[in-house]
């Protein structure tokens, strides 16, 4: 597989991928997770030990203070398993207009995470919860046995707390990935179906649904290889390249900080080891927002964000 194929695709069309105005600081708290999802581009899981230190948490907060981001977006791994998460949330919340924390729902349902529910409510955190499908089979094929029921109960609990309820300002969004080597449904159609199924069967409500294509990195790539799907999936993504998606790609407005404090243009470049600015830059060295026009390193995984209607941090671009 040609690692420069995406760049060749851009070059052939006279296109470039460069930074726009940076608005979002994405914080990857580490690779420790209570689940080992089969589509995970980071290969996060219970056996991993990489996690953000208290010192790096403070450097992240300090960076947000001096650079001024509109949004902070906390992801992992499972952010709930970071002991310093309350400090990270409390430190970032006053400095941004919007603070997002992502969850696999199972980690948030652990008794040890119960204190986070009130923390999220107090700091008006927008929760983005992963839910691959509206059925147990596809959900558990991706996330493991028992994930479906636990996720449904946790969503009901979040609704009880006011997240995702009509008339509430507490936001609950869902994120869905396909459970295999195929593209996700259109976001509008998928949201309509999730909304009606979850409401009818479980009384669950939410604000928005974001759909994402699986990125051929990490554990998902290993599965693509062993299952004999890699080449077909790669062709599917490459064949669905849509140049209209480029302006809305998350890497143009994100800066993503890894658990060790080093910077990337997005979580996928982080997984692929393609650093921001093509050099290792620590968040403590970031004195201002990265300049517009800075070139963004690319790899074949970038096809996952430019397929069809395209996908970004907020899901499908359509």
């Amino acid at each position, binding site marked *: 597989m040609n690692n420069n194929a995406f760049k060749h695709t851009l070059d052939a069309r006279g296109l470039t991928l460069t930074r726009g105005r940076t608005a979002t600081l994405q914080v990857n708290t580490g690779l420790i997770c209570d689940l080992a999802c089969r589509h995970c581009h980071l290969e996060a899981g219970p056996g991993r030990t990489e996690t953000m230190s208290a010192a790096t948490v403070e450097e992240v907060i300090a960076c947000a203070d001096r650079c001024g981001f509109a949004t902070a977006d906390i992801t992992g791994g499972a952010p709930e398993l970071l002991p310093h998460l309350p400090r990270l949330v409390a430190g970032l919340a006053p400095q941004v207009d919007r603070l997002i924390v992502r969850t696999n729902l199972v980690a948030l349902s652990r008794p040890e995470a119960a204190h986070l529910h009130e923390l999220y409510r107090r700091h008006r955190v927008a929760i983005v919860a992963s839910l691959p*499908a509206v*059925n147990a089979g*596809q959900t558990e094929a991706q996330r493991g046995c028992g994930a479906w029921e636990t996720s449904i109960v946790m969503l009901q609990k979040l609704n009880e707390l006011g997240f995702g309820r009509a008339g509430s300002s507490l936001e609950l969004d869902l994120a869905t990935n*396909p459970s295999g080597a*195929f593209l*996700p*449904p259109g976001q509008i*159609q998928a949201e309509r*179906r999730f909304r009606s199924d979850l409401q009818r069967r479980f009384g669950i409500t939410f604000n928005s649904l974001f759909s994402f294509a699986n990125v051929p990195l990490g554990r998902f790539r290993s599965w693509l290889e062993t299952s004999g799907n890699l080449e077909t999936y790669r062709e599917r993504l490459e064949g669905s390249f849509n140049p209209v998606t480029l302006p809305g790609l998350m890497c143009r407005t994100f800066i993503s900080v890894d658990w060790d404090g080093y910077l990337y243009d997005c979580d996928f470049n982080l997984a692929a080891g393609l650093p921001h600015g093509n050099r290792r830059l620590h968040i403590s060295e970031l004195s201002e927002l990265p300049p517009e026009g800075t070139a963004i390193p690319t790899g074949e995984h970038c096809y996952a964000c430019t397929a069809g209607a395209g996908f970004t941090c907020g899901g499908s671009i359509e």
Partner: protein
Amino acid sequence: MNSYYDPADLPKFGDIGKEAPELARKFFDYYGSVFAEGALTEREKALIALAVAHAVQCPYCIDAYTVACLEKGSSLEEMTEALHVVTAIRGGASLVHGVQMRKIAEKLSL
């Protein structure tokens, strides 16, 4: 050629228009319109197409609409139920002709 059916041939479907472009254009325009969202969703239409693909036993269509159903958000459970619908209709279509059999047999029998 090792087989009459080769998965790599599916993307060549459009080549059928080379000898009769106007007819192909009309067909593919119609085809595209049929599968666009309407009173039925694209997901529902893909499930119907998957079931019919099995009824007409077209390997190309089974391949294409299995992928389409998954990409439209259907589960394997729903896709399997759709196949049972078409199987019931196919089986029922055979069985209901038993009425003819019975009518003829009864006419001929004492």
